[in-house]
């Protein structure tokens, strides 16, 4: 009986250690996450000018949206729309990938809202953010 209890306790302690370890950090260094990250990084080279001009802004759900298509030359408008669509596809995939990589697909919505806050927080001054009150400039 004593041995049984001891081994049970040891098992619990081991489990606790694993759980604390698992909770301490969120795994984001997976091939899937890195691929999406690189794709977004490459796209940012094209998007950053549109963030700065106000043509494109951040939304509070962790996505981006075209804010002022009129500020973009007619010839480039389609390209901007395509950039925004591709970026949003990558962002959705990123949130899902992080949730899956950590074994908790149900965390996707929370990861998305965490990112949404951090994107806005880290955005440069002058960039636009779409909240419930409409577009506001940071």
């Amino acid at each position, binding site marked *: 009986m004593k041995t049984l209890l001891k081994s049970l306790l040891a098992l619990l302690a081991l489990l606790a250690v694993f759980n604390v370890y698992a909770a301490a*950090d*969120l795994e984001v260094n997976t091939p899937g996450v890195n691929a999406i*990250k690189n794709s977004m*990084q490459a796209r940012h080279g094209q998007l950053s000018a549109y963030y700065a001009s106000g043509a494109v802004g951040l939304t509070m759900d962790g996505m981006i949206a075209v804010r002022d298509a009129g500020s973009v030359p007619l010839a480039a408008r389609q390209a901007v729309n395509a950039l925004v669509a591709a970026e949003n596809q990558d962002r959705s995939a990123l949130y899902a990938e*992080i949730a899956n990589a950590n074994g908790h697909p149900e965390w996707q919505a*929370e990861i998305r809202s965490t*990112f949404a*806050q*951090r994107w806005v927080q880290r955005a440069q001054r002058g960039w636009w953010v779409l909240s419930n009150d409409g577009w506001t400039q940071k």
Partner: protein
Amino acid sequence: MRKVWMVLPLAAFALTACVTINIYFPAAAAEKAADKIIEEVWQIQQSDKPATVKEAK
């Protein structure tokens, strides 16, 4: 046998602790992870945190 009554609540507590940690979303860790990815995607230089910045890459 008396020891069992001391160990059992402890074991129960440890078990619920495990479950609790696993169910709840690690908000702080998620923020950290998000910041790391955002810094890389937007290529933000950490000039406001000189202590942690490495000189050359």
